[in-house]
């Protein structure tokens, strides 16, 4: 166990939230495996992004485990998150996790109190996004699509992405480079503008 905050951060000042902060908001950054969620969180976070390893117990059917453990298997799923102080009294947390149906308990935790979700999409692997959209919609979360344009040779027009993902006309689609702070912030801005429209 590491009970000491990382030295880089303590040298800069503090790992702690400013004492004037009274409100914390949460936005989810979701998408399939290796789509760039952690990169985007890292581009925006003021702290070194943190990761927890969540142990998920799954019922398994008739597993003849060599060590004689039966009935259940555990899987580790990473939860990555970062923090941005947005005003004197407000911090924003970004939580990223893969979209797998079987990590329900993690999703319930993440979705509770979330403003909405930024759904990262790799245009070369659009079909892997379907189950993630189902999950986000299943939890009643509003979302925007951010097409991560780095590291992908496939280029699709917004209309093609919309059609492939069967999006509602008012669901925002933006292109972003998850490595770039400005581009990542603009993707979040598109999401929050959408949330404001929906809240109107």
């Amino acid at each position: 166990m590491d009970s000491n905050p990382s030295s880089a951060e303590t040298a800069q000042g503090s790992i702690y939230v400013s004492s004037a902060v009274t409100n914390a908001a949460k936005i989810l950054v979701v998408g399939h495996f290796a789509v760039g969620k952690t990169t985007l969180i890292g581009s925006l976070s003021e702290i070194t992004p943190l990761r927890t390893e969540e142990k998920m117990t799954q019922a398994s059917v008739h597993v003849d485990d060599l060590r004689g453990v039966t009935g259940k298997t555990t899987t580790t799923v990473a939860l990555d998150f970062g923090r941005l102080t947005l005003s004197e009294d407000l911090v924003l947390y970004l939580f990223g996790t893969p979209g797998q149906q079987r990590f329900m308990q993690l999703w319930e935790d993440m979705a509770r109190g979330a403003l909405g979700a930024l759904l990262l999409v790799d245009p070369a692997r659009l079909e892997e996004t379907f189950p993630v959209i189902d999950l986000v919609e299943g939890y009643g979360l509003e979302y925007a699509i951010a097409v991560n344009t780095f590291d992908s040779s496939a280029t699709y027009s917004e209309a093609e992405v919309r059609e492939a993902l069967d999006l509602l006309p008012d669901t925002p689609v933006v292109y972003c480079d998850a490595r770039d702070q400005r581009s990542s912030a603009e993707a979040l801005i598109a999401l929050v503008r959408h949330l404001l429209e929906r809240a109107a």
Partner: protein
Amino acid sequence: MTAPGEEEPVSSDFVRSYVITGGRSLPSSDELALHTLVTLAPERTPPLGAGPEVTAIWDLCAGGYLSVAEVAGHLGLPVGVARLLLTDLSEQGHLLHRAEPPRAQNVDRATLEKVLHGLQSLIS
């Protein structure tokens, strides 16, 4: 990019979590959300017989406000385990909370506007 190993089968740490929590099942997120901010209340003394995890949480939380998820992340604990230990400390009156999210899923417009302005000022 997410490193390989984002999802990998493990078994060795499972027993450890079970021992830390005393075999209790993990609490729901009703009490403490991932982004609820917690800190140690002033002038408290640690519970007698606190284990190493509780002691580590105590020391970390003495420094200021952190979210439940950050406490877990800094200490290398699964969120569910950190939350259970924080819930215990909270029920014993050792913790102060801030920013508890509303129970209903209604999004508060003022918060959205603040988030929007904050993000815009980040890149302007």
